[in-house]
């Protein structure tokens, strides 16, 4: 899964969970927690979702709440190794 697909998946999950309109998460640097799009209780479910697309468990002790601040921060924390869209297309 390339980074664009991952970003779309993360955005889709957050919007569906929060019931927010798409304009509240148009950009990947828009705040997620400060905007109240996710609560502590949502984060538990969100981590399991991240694990399902990452195909690897998340070590909760190794992360700070700040990684949930934006889609950019999420990708950097959990999907840094995923290929960029161009790299993925080139195989």
């Amino acid at each position, binding site marked *: 899964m390339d980074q664009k697909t991952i970003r779309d998946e993360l955005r889709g999950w957050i919007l569906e969970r929060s019931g927010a309109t798409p304009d509240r998460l148009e950009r990947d640097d828009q705040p997620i927690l400060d905007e109240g799009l996710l*609560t502590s209780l949502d984060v538990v479910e969100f981590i399991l979702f991240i*694990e399902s697309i990452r195909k690897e468990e998340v070590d909760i002790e190794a992360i700070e*709440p700040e990684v949930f601040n934006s889609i950019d921060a999420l990708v950097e924390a959990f999907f840094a190794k995923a290929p960029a869209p161009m790299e993925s297309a080139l195989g």
Partner: protein
Amino acid sequence: MTTALELAPRLTNASLKKVWTVDETFDWSEKIEVGTDWAMAPELISIYGTETYEALTEEEQKRLSFYEIVNFFSFVLYGERPLISGLMTRMYRKNTQGPLTEYLHHFVDEENKHMMMFNGFCEHYAGKVYPEKKIVLPREYAAGEEDISFFCKVLIVEELGDYYNLAMMSDRRIHPLVAKMNRVHHVDEARHLAFGRELLREHASDYIDGWTDEELARFRGWLVDYLISSWGDFYNPAVYKDAGLPNGYQIRKMALEHDTCRTFRENASAKLVDYFIEARLLEERPSF
């Protein structure tokens, strides 16, 4: 009605009469055959009654029961960690000095032993405790709300755990060591629950009339979300993976949405929800 202050010395005496240690009570050299023994009552398995469960052979169901009990013991263990921490910070306050704090010491002592007991089982038989995935984000509280939220969390982990303990402690189908752990846990938890229910009822009646309608609605919304989220602990994708079932995350989603599992959660939560409604902490039954 007996107050928490009146209850505390009686519970302290009961704790003193029933002192136990993990090492003297449990023998981890007892063998459990994964896939041969039931480690959890089948009706309590998270996906029981679903098509996915029915498609498994009995051996696969028994294998799943082993990882389910390891998961159950793991998240109860993790639930007890903040409980102990929270109880410690509530000792020796102006409103808990004397018999209340004396009993809180026994409460903490027993919870600490439960954690050791669950860890002993999980590490010995599974080689691990399933890690928890919770991150606590800062919240704003109304007056008294932090304490009320804390005791609600205590009650949820203990009441749901006790539902399972009661169902398994006398079940002859499951491995005797697991049945015994459930029994030992239940005996202590019966006291903790009696104390926690009363203390929470008193806190609620002291504070919630002073909350605005908005604050009360916000709290009730949080409590419903917390209760539903607590049930999520029972549906662990890592358990399904360890039991050899593919697509653990999809199985969790399926079970959370399945009518049979939903009805089970409703029934298992009924006593707790009744209490929350009676204490005015909830207005109506939540949808599971």
